[in-house]
């Protein structure tokens, strides 16, 4: 392992990889990404890898729009030919009640004003789009055909390849044990494999970002909650769009080779970094999905697992330099959307770190917003 680096990134999930790749593309040499297991083993490889532009607050719309356009051209941008399996079958989002339907009307107006081609649908129109959905459980729906999902493993592979082509070192099985500071500035990282001196350290540790911040004496107002997900046996194509409901607490997609993947979180669970699977999830999810989509009742579940959402109180990310340690940057608190925001994260964090003007104004995503009453409007469009 190198003894010195220009930038050390903690975490080889999709966010850390994207930040590394974008810094390297801008000419930064000597970048090291530290990963406690292997790339994508955290939330990145455990997520549904959905990507949608249908949000309720402007900034999330802009960030995800950036990401959709990026993923549409990902091979050109990353200069490799890994097929990330970007399936743009759209997202159909169902409103559980009138309150949600009202919010969806506002969301579509906002999205359309930002150039996102989404539409508001009646339950009957939703039924035409997804015949196996029992629309008696929804009051309305919205749809955007450019939304979709990717294969998270192939996407990690594409970013790892790009990182290696750009000369980035990815240190696997390396645990960060300390972050060194000199006179209020970060000066290096200690690991179980040796120490690295570096003037810039990026916290892209996802579910463990709070613990990494603590090593630098920095306070990070985030917590991590387990979300669970399951996969079924493959069947012939039935569902092209991803279906999602916020009040219904479900997202469900059929991936290109046939299996259905569906997931949710449980707000009543403790937030203690657990990543185990529960019987309750299997039971609750089976009940929800067979109510919404009775045709899926005969599908057999193959596997279930869990990953961590790194949550902020307004469900929007933190892109900022830590006030307690100059040169220590946070890219975390993605609240379940780190995968889809990763291209924007890579671009914007590289600009922030290099002192360039960000492509999208992210001044409101600073860490100061949690100290006073500067909180952003809560993003309600979250599963």
């Amino acid at each position: 392992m190198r003894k010195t680096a220009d930038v050390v990134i903690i975490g080889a999930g999709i966010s850390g990889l994207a930040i590394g790749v974008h810094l390297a593309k801008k000419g930064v040499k000597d970048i090291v990404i530290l990963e406690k297991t292997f790339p994508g083993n955290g939330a990145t490889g455990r997520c549904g890898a959905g990507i949608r532009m249908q949000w309720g607050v402007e900034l999330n719309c802009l960030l995800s729009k950036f990401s959709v356009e990026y993923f549409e051209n990902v091979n050109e941008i990353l200069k490799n030919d890994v097929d990330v399996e970007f399936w743009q079958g759209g997202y159909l989002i169902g409103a559980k009640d009138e309150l949600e339907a009202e919010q969806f009307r506002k969301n579509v107006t906002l999205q359309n004003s930002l150039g996102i081609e989404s539409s508001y649908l009646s339950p009957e129109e939703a039924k035409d789009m997804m015949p196996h959905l029992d629309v008696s459980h929804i009051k309305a729906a919205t749809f955007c055909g450019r939304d979709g999902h990717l294969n998270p493993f192939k996407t990690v592979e594409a970013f790892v390849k790009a990182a290696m082509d750009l000369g980035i070192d990815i240190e696997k099985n390396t645990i960060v044990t300390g972050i060194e500071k000199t006179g209020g500035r970060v000066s290096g990282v200690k690991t179980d494999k040796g120490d690295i001196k570096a003037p810039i350290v990026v916290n892209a540790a996802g579910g463990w970002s709070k613990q990494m911040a603590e090593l630098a004496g920095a306070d990070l107002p985030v917590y991590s909650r387990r979300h669970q997900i399951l996969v079924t046996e493959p069947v012939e194509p039935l569902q092209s769009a991803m279906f999602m409901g916020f009040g219904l607490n479900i997202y469900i997609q059929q991936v290109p080779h046939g299996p259905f993947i569906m997931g949710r979180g449980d707000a009543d669970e403790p937030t203690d970094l657990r990543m185990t699977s529960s019987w309750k999830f299997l039971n609750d999810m089976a009940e929800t999905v067979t109510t919404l989509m009775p045709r899926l009742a005969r599908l057999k579940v193959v596997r279930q697992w869990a990953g961590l959402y790194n949550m902020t109180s307004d469900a929007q990310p933190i892109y900022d330099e830590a006030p307690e340690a100059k040169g220590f940057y946070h890219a975390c608190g993605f609240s379940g959307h780190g995968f889809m925001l990763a291209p924007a994260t890579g671009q914007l964090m590289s600009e922030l770190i290099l002192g360039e003007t960000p492509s999208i104004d992210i001044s409101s995503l600073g860490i100061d917003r949690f100290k006073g009453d500067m909180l952003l409007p809560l993003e309600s469009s979250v599963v």
Partner: protein
Amino acid sequence: MNRIEHHPILTFPEKRTLTFYFDGKALSGKEGDTIASALHAAGVRVLGHHFKSHRPRGFYCAIGNCSSCLMVVNGVPNVRVCVEQLEEGMDVRSQNDKGVLP
């Protein structure tokens, strides 16, 4: 016939005959059979074809683990016939794709 009728230790009491259909053809099995054991006894060795390689698939693990014996039973795809009990009049069909949900 592929059924053991005489055994030095075990005895096999006579069971009721059940009629079922394999790809539309009437076959008979015994009460207590799984679908796979009835097919095997009737001499059927190819249960379906792999959706991708199109190679024949047969009776393999016999305990519901291996996915080799997935068939369409009464219109439901991906049924593991090695652990599914035979019933009178069942419509059993070989499966050559990933299965279309009814």
